[in-house]
């Protein structure tokens, strides 16, 4: 952890921006460059920055869940997206899609998106597990 006022202030500004950017990158991923991995890395960067400027204790508190739990959750989502296809009677990991219109907006919801959420979570969890442990090692 680096004690620096400038860094801390900058982080306060950057953190929400990065987080939003990460979600943006994730969401556009299916149609434009981006996706779970890229989004996840940016999201992790946000927390990593926070951890470096304000300490891992605060970062962990902000994150609320353990990185390892996040990893498990991510894997779980990815498996879930496959199990959905099995329950639909198709081979594992077959894309299942629904196109509901919510508030006038066309949404395309598919199991691959769920899969990508899993990717996102694992990437964030992984990066944070590494950064937190290395930071805490001192």
């Amino acid at each position, binding site marked *: 952890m680096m004690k620096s006022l400038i860094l801390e202030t900058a982080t306060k500004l950057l953190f929400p921006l990065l987080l939003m950017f990460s979600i943006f990158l994730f969401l556009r991923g*299916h*149609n434009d*460059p981006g996706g*779970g991995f890229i989004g996840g890395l940016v999201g992790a960067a946000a927390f990593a920055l926070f951890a470096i400027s304000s300490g891992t204790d605060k970062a962990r508190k902000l994150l609320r869940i353990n*990185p390892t739990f996040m990893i498990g959750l991510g894997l779980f989502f*990815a498996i879930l997206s496959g199990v959905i296809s099995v329950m639909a009677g198709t081979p594992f990991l077959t894309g299942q899609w629904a196109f509901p219109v919510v508030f006038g907006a066309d949404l*395309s919801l598919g199991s691959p*998106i769920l899969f990508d959420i899993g*990717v996102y979570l*694992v990437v964030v969890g992984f990066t944070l597990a590494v950064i937190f442990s290395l930071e805490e090692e001192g």
Partner: protein
Amino acid sequence: MSVLVAVLLGFVVAVFAPWISRLLKDSAGWALAIVPAGLFAYFASFLPLIASGETFRESTPWVPYINIHFSFYIDGLSLLFALIISGIGTFIVIYGGGYLKGDRDIARFYLSLLMFMGSMLGVVLSDNLLTLFIFWELTSFTSYLLIGYYHEKAASRRAALQALLVTGTGGLAMLGGVILMALAGGSMEITELVNEADVIREHGFYIAILILVCAGAFTKSAQFPFHYWLPAAMEAPTPVSAYLHSATMVKAGVYLLARFNPILGGTDWWLWLVTGFGAVTMVVSAWLALSFTDMKRVLAYSTVMALGTLVMLIGMGHPYAMQAMVVFLLGHSLYKGALFMMAGSVDHEAGTRDVLLLGGLRKVMPYTFAFGTIAALSMAGIPLFLGFIGKELVYEAALGFSPAPVLIIIAAVLANIALVASSGIVIIRPFFGEFKETPKHVHEAPVSMWIGPAVLGVLSLVFGFLPFLLSDYIMVPAASAVAGVPLEFYLAIWHGINLPLILSVVTLLGGILVYKAWDNLRGSVMPGYKTAFATLPEAAYDFSLNSMLSVAYWQTLLFQSGNLRYYVMTIVGFTVLLVGYPLVSKAGIYIPVDWSDIHFYEWLLAGLMIAGVLAAATARSGLIAVISLGVVGYSIALIYLLFSAPDLAITQMLVETLTVILVALVLIKLPGVPREPSPVGRARNIVIAVSAGLMVTLTLFAAFTVPFDPFMAGYFTENSYVIAHGRNIVNVILVDFRALDTLGEITVLAVAGVGIFALIKLHNAVKQAKEEGKI
């Protein structure tokens, strides 16, 4: 009851032996003896059938795919062996019960002994080569356990290992031999191979088969120069020696040669190899017996002498030799079993078996003395004992050996002279003369320990008197089986005054003279003789074992040096060889000529990457290395971007950034990055590294000459939006077309994350636990 059941009975009862032993305590030996006794009776029931010239065969499939069957064959030869094994086995079990009374491991003695007996029966009864081999090896293993019975003594362990390695080597050789034999003869069954004997003897494998099979037989039957393990194995408790080294295990080799005689015998190779080894063993070991004062060693070497005689007889190949072989075999089994038991009784009661420390025991141990004497007289070949008939036949066979009768007859007489002297040593020395004080207070051995010598000794006498009891029922069929053709002969006590009889008289007189001179011999010639023929072969064993170990250590140091960089070097070097050779010789070298489509900035980028890695490789400071690394990484990202891979470019950029951060985070905490210190090492590394790079580049050049078919890309492009509802084809491949890859990929990340966490945190946790004394 089938033969299979009979063979397996020993194994089955063996499993229960420990319980029986615990239950019946000291009388367990008598109870367990029922097993071999019953088997003896069972095998005896075959006598009429065999006597009538018939044979018996049964077969139970085991692994029919590769022709392994439990097939058993009873003819004169196998029946003779089966009777010896079960008959003597009966008395050994009883004797063992007395000898090892109260010993804490006695249950294991019964267990191993019964298993050993089962294995021996398997060896002599098997008709299938592979089951024969399996039983053969089982005798090695069970005898290993028996020889190492006093396993807490280092000498016992050494002797057991020696026996195992020597007979194990032979066993493997034999396996090779029988497999070749099966290939040459087209069958696994010995009875069928006998019919193919001509084919096998003419076959290109013949010499190899012969040598391999003989290696198995000679090691097992302790032929010179592999004989050293047998006397060393006298570390075993005496019941074991009495059984293994008189009547059974060591005779397995003899059995094997006898069994294969109709298949492999009759050639010059066979004649000289088998007869030669046998004769040398016979003479050498007969005299070696005289260089020891330990009763068991004397008996052990005289056993080796007997084995040599038997092997020699098998090699000779003519009918007299076969006849002599079977009679000598039975005679030896009877007297040697009895004598070993006698020696054990003396040792057991007196606390020593060194003949120089013993004397005058005949009064305190009358039964042991009486029956031992009968056996010894048989061994010395005194008329009226079976041993006499055996010896006469040996002489007759030697005389009938046309290629070299004089040589063989001299050898046989010389050996038998020493045998007579040995008989004197083991009987006259301990039992006659003045009574000497011994470590233990001597009294007669219990009945369990003299019943065996009694029966075996008396049988030597009975058969000696009435040899016709034997000849029709068992000896003629047995000799016929060895010869492979029906033989006819008749055993008699008196053959008239002929050359063999004269030789016998010479032998006896010679033996007495040698016995008289024994004390002088021991002081003069014997030590040198012993060194040459007993110590040297054993030293050769030690030497070969040690050199094998040296080679092992040397190659381990060479290959498994513990230096990671040598490992990497070897692997990369091997790869370059493996890939480079076919690349140059088969695929061809292609140097591209058209470089025109490359833009100026692309050249620049390539140059930047090359400069970057070279800087990273030569940097002395960690910081420069990391920065150079970053340059390379970002340049690659640019390449990806230039060639229309935006996702890749972004990912590469992000990962590169993280990589640099991580390396920097770790570098802060570590010392610098020193280079390979020695210039020679550096030069060698450069050569390997450059050739590795060259290999990759040239393979790439070659690969570019093959036209590329992007048919998969076409499919993805067409279906990405239509079926998979995504416009970013790369992303669709990742989360849909090839989602399974991505599933694996995030699993890798997950594990890496958890692993890194554990690497750092568990360290602290373990430290803490250690401090608290939990681990």
